[in-house]
């Protein structure tokens, strides 16, 4: 039998004999606003969902650490694991080992290249890139120069966003020149690149930053010092779209400093990751199709399921929507 969970406490179908058991969770990193919000939602939601959560481990963006953390969680008795492997290839062996021990795994944010997972909870990163491309393309009416702060090439999310953005630009807006700046997710690199680029091409009129948490402040600061932080009505205005959905981005949208962001649902990540892990322990199974929470479960090949959560585009119109996670944290 299969079901779509209608709520976290959906009734068990596969018999709840195996229900219960500790859930181990590994946090990928603690030095970005997005992940910090996620890290904060997890224990809160675990309480609400009635999940028996072990003390979370932290792999500090290092897959080797993630592997050892997982092993430690298992030896401490974890019956299900939630993780967010930032390096999607290097986790394959671990997933196989966990599968061998019948420990279901829910991955958040990234889809492992290989290996068995119970569910992948993520937003579609390619969609981020496409949304950003479409937004800028429309605002600039298909003409102009755009600077793109790429993430690290060795991160899937960065690569997905970059590729989708580039493909969409090429296909739909050939009149827009894109300067793709490699930043390794570093604010200083982005700031330096933008400064250089603005000197070289003073007529730049669009910016796509792949991570607002890292690039927002440096970009605004630089534009301010160049007197380029002007309202959209001004012809000098540079259109900026960001990814993440942190409160500071919302504030910047309200202030007219940036124009849009794609809200990456930190709260939903936490909520559904825990729900699926719990469901796995309760013996439930799922099938592709629409869910009751505005998302779709898709089969990404080999029977691996992925719940693609909605990642709304936030602009001045909907920036005050209280449902956005960025409006729920301090």
């Amino acid at each position, binding site marked *: 039998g299969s079901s779509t969970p209608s709520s976290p406490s959906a009734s068990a179908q596969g018999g709840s004999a195996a229900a219960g058991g500790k859930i181990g969770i590994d946090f990928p*990193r*603690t*030095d*970005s*606003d997005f*992940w*910090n919000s996620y*890290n904060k939602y997890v224990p809160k939601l675990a309480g609400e969902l009635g999940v028996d959560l072990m003390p979370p481990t932290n792999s500090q963006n290092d897959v080797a650490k993630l592997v050892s953390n997982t092993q430690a969680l298992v030896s401490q008795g974890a019956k299900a694991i939630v993780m967010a492997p930032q390096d999607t290839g290097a986790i394959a062996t671990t997933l196989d080992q966990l599968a061998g021990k019948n420990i279901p795994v829910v991955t958040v944010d990234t889809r492992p290249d290989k290996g068995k997972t119970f569910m992948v909870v993520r937003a579609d990163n390619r969609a981020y890139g496409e949304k950003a491309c479409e937004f800028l393309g429309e605002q600039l009416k298909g003409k102009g120069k755009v600077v793109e702060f*790429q993430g690290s*090439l060795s991160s899937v999310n960065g690569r997905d966003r*970059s590729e989708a953005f580039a493909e969409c630009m090429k296909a739909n807006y050939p009149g827009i020149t894109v*300067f*793709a*700046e*490699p930043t390794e997710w*570093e*604010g*200083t690199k982005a*700031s*330096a*690149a933008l*400064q*250089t*680029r603005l*000197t*070289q091409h003073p007529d730049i009129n669009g910016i796509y930053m792949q991570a607002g*948490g*890292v690039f*927002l*402040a*440096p970009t*605004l*600061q*630089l534009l*301010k*010092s160049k007197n380029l932080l002007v309202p959209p009505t001004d012809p000098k205005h540079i259109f900026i779209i960001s990814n993440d959905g942190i409160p*500071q981005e919302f504030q910047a949208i309200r202030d007219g400093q940036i124009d849009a962001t794609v809200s990456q649902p930190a709260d939903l990540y936490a909520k559904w990751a825990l729900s699926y892990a719990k469901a796995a322990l309760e013996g439930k199974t799922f099938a592709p199709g629409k869910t009751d929470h505005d998302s779709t479960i898709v089969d990404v090949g080999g029977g691996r399921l992925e719940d693609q959560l909605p990642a709304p585009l936030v602009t001045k119109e909907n920036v005050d929507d209280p449902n956005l996670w960025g409006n729920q944290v*301090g």
Partner: protein
Amino acid sequence: MTETTVTSPGTPGGPPGTAGGTGRGPSGLRLARFRDLALVPAILLLVVVGALIEPAFLSGDNLTNVLQQQTELSLLVLAEAVILIAGKFDLSLESTVGLAPALGVALVIPAASNGLGTDWPAALGIPICLLIGVLVGAFNGLLILRFKLSAFIVTLGMLIVLRGLQIGFTGGQNLFALPDSFLYLGNARWVGLPASVWICGLAYAIGIVALGYFRHGRSVYAIGGNVDAARAAGVRTDRVLWTVFMIGGLLAALAGLLMTGRLGSVAASQGNGMIFTVFAAAVIGGVSLDGGKGTLFGALCGVLVLGLINNILTLAGVSAQWIQAIYGGIILIALMLARVTSGKAQD
């Protein structure tokens, strides 16, 4: 085999243009200057290449950008160069770059903006930031000099601890709500140039004069060259070293301050991974890891080389896929060029 040559100790610790003679006899003086200027051909080459690739390269605006983007790095390199000349090591500078302004900011901003809730007067922000730098340096000095621990591991441990503290008390959040004083320094322009460039130039000028023309500065070279001999000559080696560590921390905090102002926030990862670049610039600039050798002017040239390479690669729009390989390749070539023009073995 090359074993026959006598590896003569390279860089003189001499003050620029004065007694810093290497080599032998009357041509020694000239050689010494060359060594200091070893990177100048590399810099010239880069400038020519830059101008060919992109006319905008030579615009005053762009060159100012290059300078401004390197200010924080160059302050760290200044700090590290002095510490290396004194024969020690400091890896923890890169964490101080993040921790000092983070604490300085967190203590003065309201808890609602991720502050610590102490709400101290905003005017204290900068002094606290600098003080923290000095304290970190003093603590490093304590462990290294009193407890006789290895500078490398002490500061490696501190690197981790300080970064950890920053993540700990900010909960890993970036601090966005900066007091105006922080923003001012990172953004103001004085007489047409960014304030940070002036500050950095001043710091180097003071450093060059102090290391070149003052007794305590010279004793840094003496200590790095042979600490026992320096002690025998009456240099209070521990005191000088301690001071050097504290100045290093101070400069790192200042760099953090400027970076915070320029980027408009304190990232939890501010400074992360910079120490490699700091060492690269210092060593490329002729500062020896063995101590006692190198000049601040050389170190500054090292910073410039790296800054120019970065700028040119950005202007040239090199593909993200190959940028790192090319960057590394150019550094290696610049090194070999410096080696060939200076004619000295490096160390």
